[in-house]
């Protein structure tokens, strides 16, 4: 580690022009990255990760400026280079992979044009050489058929493929430094700073099992205009002392090479104080033992034909899309049914069919022992009241022109069938807001005056306003920071016990599902391939797809090396759903031709555990219990 670092930022500060003044977004950051080193940067939304990442490339948005410090790269100070010189360095010596591949590619240029222009401009490669380089770079990302991909337009690629193209683009000039702005939860061994400890502890996987609550961080990240002057974390830190508010802690090098900016670092390292919040380990109520079904779904099907009538008449319709194929499930009273699966597996369609927002083609629904019609308009008011939804983006579902109080009051008066007096509505609104951890004062606010987490709490309060039997939550925390997600997950858990509701909870995050759900369904291309209790689906025997999902999710603990089987390739389009077992094109445990030819049987194991696979349960158990047992 004595070699000169590739890049070295010293006391770097960056400012944005906001409301006529300059506001500090990055203050005095010092970091070095050595050759072949991966430097991770974590923090809540708005903490400045992207700003710093792009600043390291010498790029600033138009309303930003460097306010001090230096960035040494290649013997040059990037903060002092002219824009043109900085541009020549980035792209050639520093590559960038953006946070969100969506829209990061120009929709009207082919992948080839966009990949080749980098090397043609920076390395002056000929057309043919640039083409070859682009192919190589794509091959490095293990994309299938790089030649064909080069000829395509971005919209013809899946999100995963677009991400790989972005990586190939950054790699194609063989840069010395790669900046990856990705929302991954990075790996820690033993964090020392109170903020890092708080972030890590709020991950659902860090919780001590389902009975405990998630740790949270108090308050929210301060906006640029209101940041504390001394320790930036002081307002929210459980270990704060008087000194923290008056003097900025220095960046101190630790014996193991880490550096830490905290007055109480030595005490934390010595273990004499602990920023984890002991008050929060009180057990959360578990689901009742007796299973009373409140919702039953049998053989639900939904196929989308998105071709127009004209296309169908002329026989030109594209293949129909089977979004739900023979899905059956049961949700018990006060239980949480967790639904996981990759994007495009049909989770949202299932939720919408149960909620009646999408009309299922076929199948039966039963709510509280009464048949439930598939189309919304044929459902009784009682049934409508009993199923409510919470969506991914709270901002989209709250009407910007209604105050929180008006939105809640409207739902209350609709479902109280106008029998509530004005005082009763005000009283219930206040009670609801308190139940979701807000105060009655929030009733007067408009959605734009709420943070993302607060909006989601209001959306949850609105769902509860109708006193439903079932709440369907579709990725309710995926747009939120892990610290805010912890608050919402705790809240949902408390409300389940207090209000006696059941949840159908959808998430692509296995940790979140594992924390909240009693019963888990794993979806793949419109089918539930496995369902069972949390313990059943996370230990052998498991469906090969579940197994792959589990081993693909990054472990928070570095001491556990990644193991198990890998998923290769992207999820196939549901339009070209593979015959036989839908998973056979990617299944690492594939038996042979039978998987492609015959629909696998539904095997029922102990305790109602269901797995749809040709491999007998006993064999699955053996295969999955021996490490490296895959073929």
């Amino acid at each position, binding site marked *: 580690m004595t070699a000169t670092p590739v890049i070295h930022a010293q006391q770097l500060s960056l400012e944005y022009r906001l409301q006529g003044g300059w506001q500090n977004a990055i203050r005095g950051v010092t970091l070095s990255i050595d050759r072949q080193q991966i430097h991770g940067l974590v923090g809540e939304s708005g903490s400045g990760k992207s700003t710093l990442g792009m600043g390291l490339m010498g790029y600033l948005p138009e309303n930003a400026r460097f306010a001090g410090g230096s960035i040494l790269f290649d013997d040059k100070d990037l903060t002092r280079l002219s824009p043109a010189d900085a541009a020549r360095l*980035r*792209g050639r010596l520093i590559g960038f992979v953006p946070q969100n591949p969506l829209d*990061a590619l120009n929709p*009207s240029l082919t992948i080839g044009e966009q990949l080749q222009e980098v090397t043609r*401009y920076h390395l002056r490669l000929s057309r043919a050489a640039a083409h070859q380089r682009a192919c190589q770079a794509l091959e490095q990302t293990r994309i299938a058929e790089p030649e064909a991909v080069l000829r395509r337009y971005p*919209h013809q690629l899946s999100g995963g493929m677009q991400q790989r193209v*972005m990586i190939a*683009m950054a790699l194609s000039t063989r840069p010395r430094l790669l900046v990856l702005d990705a929302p991954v939860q990075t790996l820690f061994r033993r964090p020392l700073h109170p903020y890092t400890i708080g972030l890590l502890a709020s991950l659902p996987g860090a919780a001590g099992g389902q009975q405990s609550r998630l740790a949270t961080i108090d308050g929210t990240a301060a906006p640029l205009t209101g940041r504390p002057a001394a320790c930036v974390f002081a307002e929210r830190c459980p270990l704060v002392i008087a000194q923290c508010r008056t003097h900025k802690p220095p960046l101190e090098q630790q014996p193991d090479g880490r550096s830490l900016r905290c007055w109480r670092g030595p005490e934390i390292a010595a273990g004499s104080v602990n920023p984890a919040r002991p008050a929060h380990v009180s057990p959360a109520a578990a689901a009742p033992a007796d299973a009373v079904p409140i919702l039953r779904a049998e053989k639900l099907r939904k196929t989308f034909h998105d071709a127009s009538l004209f296309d169908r008449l002329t026989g030109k319709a594209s293949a129909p899309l089977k979004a739900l194929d023979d899905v059956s499930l049961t949700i018990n009273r006060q239980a949480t049914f967790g639904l996981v699966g990759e994007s495009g597996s049909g989770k949202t369609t299932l939720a919408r069919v149960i909620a009646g927002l999408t009309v299922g083609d076929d199948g039966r629904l039963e709510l509280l022992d009464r048949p439930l019609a598939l189309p919304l308009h044929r459902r009784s008011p009682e049934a409508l009241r009993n199923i409510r939804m919470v969506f991914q983006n709270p901002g989209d579902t709250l009407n910007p022109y209604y105050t929180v109080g008006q939105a809640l009051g409207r739902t209350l008066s609709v479902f109280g069938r106008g029998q509530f007096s004005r005082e009763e509505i005000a009283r219930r609104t206040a009670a609801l807001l308190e139940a979701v951890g807000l105060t009655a004062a929030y009733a007067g606010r408009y959605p734009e005056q709420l943070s993302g987490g607060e909006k989601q709490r209001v959306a949850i309060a609105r769902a509860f306003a109708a006193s439903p039997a079932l709440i369907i939550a579709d990725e309710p925390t995926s747009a939120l920071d892990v610290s805010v997600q912890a608050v919402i997950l705790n809240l949902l858990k408390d409300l389940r016990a207090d209000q006696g509701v059941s949840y159908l909870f959808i998430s692509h995050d296995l940790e979140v599902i594992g924390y909240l759900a009693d019963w888990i369904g794993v979806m793949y291309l419109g089918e539930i391939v496995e369902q069972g209790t949390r313990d059943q689906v996370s230990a052998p025997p498991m469906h090969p797809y579940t197994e792959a999902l589990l081993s693909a999710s990054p472990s928070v603990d570095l001491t556990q090396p990644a193991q198990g089987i890998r998923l290769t390739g992207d999820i196939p389009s549901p339009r070209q759903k593979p015959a036989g077992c839908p998973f056979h094109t990617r299944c690492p445990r594939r038996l042979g031709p039978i998987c492609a030819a015959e629909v696998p049987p539904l095997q029922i194991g102990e305790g109602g555990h269901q797995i749809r696979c040709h491999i007998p349960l006993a064999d699955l158990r053996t295969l999955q219990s021996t490490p490296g047992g895959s073929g």
Partner: protein
Amino acid sequence: MIRYLVRRVLLLILTLLLTSMIVFAMTQALPGDIARLVLGRDARPEAVAAFRQQFGLNDPLPVQYLRWLGGFVTGNPGRSFAAGNPPVMPLVLDRLGNSFLLAGYTLLLTLPLSIVAGIVAALREGSWLDNLIAFISLSVTGLPEFVTGIVLINLFALGTGWFAATSLVQDGYTVVDWLRVLTLPALTAGFVLGGYVTRMTRAGMIDELKKAYVRTAILKGLPRRTIILRHVLRNALLPTITVIAISFGWLMGGLVVIENVFNYPGLGSLLVTAVEQKNLPVLQTCVVLIVFIFAAANLLADVLYAALNPRIRLT
């Protein structure tokens, strides 16, 4: 693509058939006898009868319609009611040519400047230059055409004599003569169109400049000029190009006011005269032709949009 075109052309023909029927039906709804309306209240009964005979007005309506339709398709939709009863087609074609000339010249005068102005305004968003361009483009579009037209005439025709105030197009015109005649009406129409195009271009550019792919291009280290020309422009101009194609229909058939102010013999003014004179054969042919131009301009806009936008495949 071929299928799409065939379908759209069939649709266009259907539209034309329907419009022609509607126009036909509407002319029949005029109060009173058309022959009397044309010949005047004091016309002798014999003259009226002869007129009806000559234009086949005694036949049942469907027969009249089919005769007109047959004539239109074969390029001879009958004769005008006007004095001397000249054939309709050469008259209309002549006006069509004039309109085409004016429309083309207007686009030529307007587009380069207004597109560049839109791009510059977007690149300097919020600057005094942007504000100035916004002010000019808003005011020129907002002014009624007859006001701009009359101001221009006073400034450049009556005042300096550089350009012709009225445009009695004659045979044997040289290019200079044509320019003298065309420039002022083209400018008047160009003001309306140009202001619009500038604002469309500016809005399109600003939208695109905010897109994530622009940042990708910047972080690739590409020079700014390449980013604008290669990446941003082709996306930003898509809506503008559609608007231009559609506005071509307006330039061809909708310049009634401008043609009137400048006395320019285009299609629009022919249509108005035909209405005034109850000149049904001219009226019908004109309307169907203008509808055709509008529909064709729309089709052109759609095809252009799809050709420039890989996300859209016409099927």
